[in-house]
């Protein structure tokens, strides 16, 4: 095994250039080194001007999503040796405006997230003194998968619909809405219906399925969206057939 590998980093420095440029760095190729270790090596030893986000380096905080050789990846959980002998191309996540180098602007998602009301909505809140809302392990399993989202944005980066239709709510936001819709403690599904069933919601999705392929936590947002389509369509038929009072 060679002892070095080339990282081709796509850099955008708003003060210097209009267009991003590729800059190559040689970093040590070592067992257990993630792409992220390569990037911190560059930052610490070769070029302090390289900007990227990272924090937990254990695949749970969702900071370090980037495009590695064309695929959206958590760079802390993607290893240099898997790309040997290289070179490895590291780009910012696709489908987001780039602020600088590998740092993208996820403000759009942060603005959309509250619109799907991702919190427990109850008709009547019980006081905590009365104890927990009971929930069996089976009821927990109904939504558990969709609660695993770390908001890393890899699904948005993989989604061509989001690229073409920036108003699209997107995979993670819809999956999180479904996470609450399917939670036995929640009674807010009807409050989320308008936004989810809007043209920017589930109906914009053409089931490319790339969001689920990209998801590092097996959340399967594509499934969340398809399931909600079926729910919404059934609901629409019911609304159409039944008089208002009988719904």
């Amino acid at each position, binding site marked *: 095994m060679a002892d070095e590998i080339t990282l081709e980093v796509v850099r955008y420095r*708003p003060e210097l250039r209009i267009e991003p440029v590729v800059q190559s760095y040689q970093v040590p190729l070592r067992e257990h080194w993630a792409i992220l270790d390569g990037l911190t090596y560059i930052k610490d030893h070769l070029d302090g001007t390289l900007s*990227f986000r990272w924090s*937990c*380096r254990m695949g749970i905080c969702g900071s370090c999503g980037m495009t590695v050789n064309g695929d959206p990846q958590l760079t802390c959980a993607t290893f240099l040796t898997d790309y040997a002998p290289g070179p490895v191309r590291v780009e910012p996540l696709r489908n987001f405006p780039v602020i600088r180098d590998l740092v993208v602007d996820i403000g759009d998602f942060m603005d959309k997230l509250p619109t799907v009301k991702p919190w427990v909505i109850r008709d009547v809140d019980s006081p905590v003194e009365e104890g*927990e809302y*009971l*929930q069996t392990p089976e009821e927990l399993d109904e939504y558990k998968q969709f*609660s695993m989202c770390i908001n890393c944005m890899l699904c948005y980066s993989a989604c061509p619909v989001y690229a073409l239709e920036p108003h699209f709510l997107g995979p993670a936001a819809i999956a999180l809405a479904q996470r609450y819709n399917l939670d036995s403690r929640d009674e807010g599904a009807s409050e989320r219906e308008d936004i989810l069933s809007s043209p920017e919601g589930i109906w914009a999705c053409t089931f490319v399925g790339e969001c689920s392929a990209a998801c590092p936590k097996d959340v399967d947002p594509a499934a969340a969206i398809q399931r909600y389509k079926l729910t919404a369509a059934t609901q629409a038929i019911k609304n159409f057939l039944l008089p208002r009072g009988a719904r």
Partner: protein
Amino acid sequence: MTASHDVLVIGGGGAGLRAAIAVAETNPRLRVAIVSKVYPMRSHTVSAEGGAAGVAADDDSLDEHAYDTVSGSDWLCDQDAVEAFVHEAPRELLRLEHWGCPWSRQPDGHIAVRAFGGMKKKRTWFAADRTGFHMLHTLFQTVLSFPEIVRYDEWYVTKLLVDDGRTYGVVAIDLATGRTETITASAVIVCTGGCGRVYPFTTNANIKTGDGMALAYRAGAPLKDMEFVQYHPTGLPFTGILITEAARAEGGWLLNKDGYRYLQDYDLGKPEPTPVMRSMELGPRDRLSQAFVHEQAKGRTIDTPYGPIVHLDLRHLGAELIDAKLPFVRELCSKYQNIDPVTELVPVRPVVHYMMGGIHTDIHGATPIQGLFAAGEVACVSINGANRLGSNSLPECLVFGARAGRAAALFAGLYGGRIPPAVMAQGRDEEDRLERELTRHLDGRERIADIRTEMQITMENGSGIYRDRDSMVKAFDELQELQARFADAAIDDHSRTFNTELVALLELSFMLDVAESIITCALHREESRGAHQRTDFPARDDERFLAHSLVQREPDRAGRRVRYLPVTITRWPPGERVYGR
């Protein structure tokens, strides 16, 4: 530029989010804001795995939780704080349940609890082994339901504005644009978490650089019990990624190179096939990490390129239990270590995990500086004393985050009003200083990373699991030297747009201050207690040191002063820490 709020929370992790909600609930008219250097859901609470303690089972009692915590702390906690804590923890955990936290359940739908180190009863609530992740996201998503809570995401606070013993806000940089801003507030709550990155090998995320501790320290607030640094016994070599204590609570064993459960040699009980509370692998973290050092001295650890290790054996638990209760452990082992704990031994070694010490607060989260509050790992109330029990820190974030939020709301409601001109001048000075930081190091010769690495090695050598006077004096001198070299540190990056190197520079300067406070307190405490083990003073000395150390900068900022504050004892007089017998 300036912005103004009634209550400003620094940090968007478990404590900060809980505090912000408490403010909004206490007084909805208050303008509350959260400033965080990362998006809240990136905060390090996300990495907590094992669980959160709160009495829930019928056979358990608040007194038992309190006693476990007090004895776990080696009697250095304040017992009034512990009593308040154990009393409010279950309620806070229930509240989180009502907010949607996906706690693991019993078949009948009630909350499930698991065993944990140093706890006599099962009382640790858990969401598989991603408890912190689920708690953080639940809190964050709940915060979204409060439109009155304003967020400054990816803003980095560089200074607390304090005048005449009272706080008036902060100066912060908007990372995306590089704009600096003075943000005033009647009350400020510091919830920035710990400082594990002061050490070379830590479970802590890259962001855990002790910012809040240093901010308060520089503003004249005392830091408390900084010598108590918790080493978690089971981190993965190289990365330092945490393998949760829950792995042992579910029945995992620690084996030395002979496959021997070595903890039985260290007064931690006899090996039994199934876990026994407060015994063996379920002993407290300080004792387990110390046992590792002794095993290493006896040559019974295994050498690897990433240091000596022992083995965590989960194989006998079976795939089904591991997948149900420890799925994240399996994921982490396979991803970062290329092993499957179902069939293979997990290499582990002690790793810096948690700061028992922090900003000195009372049981309402108030610091001696008026209007300045702190909660979570950054604060020291203290419920953790000389050694925190696993699964007490998550409920601590909730209980004391909420308490600090309520107290800050009360304070802001009473003492709002005019900002003295001196404070605005301070703000402008700080903005000027940041401007200079961006350019002044043009011709610097030192690299940030080099100074940081040397600081980390210095801290490991000077104040590791075992310390003595000589090593600490040496470390203290080295830190002074590093401070001097820091003045000559260069930055390559002079951009205003998302300048992470400038942040790294400011973080390093914070870390150097925190490191200094740790060594200073450790030097002064001439005894061994909990996580502070001195080879030159091997015994606990209640006569002199049943007291919190408080380290504070002299007003001229040149020196530092250490004094002692007696521990509050209500019901449990100091006794022997007994585990496994």
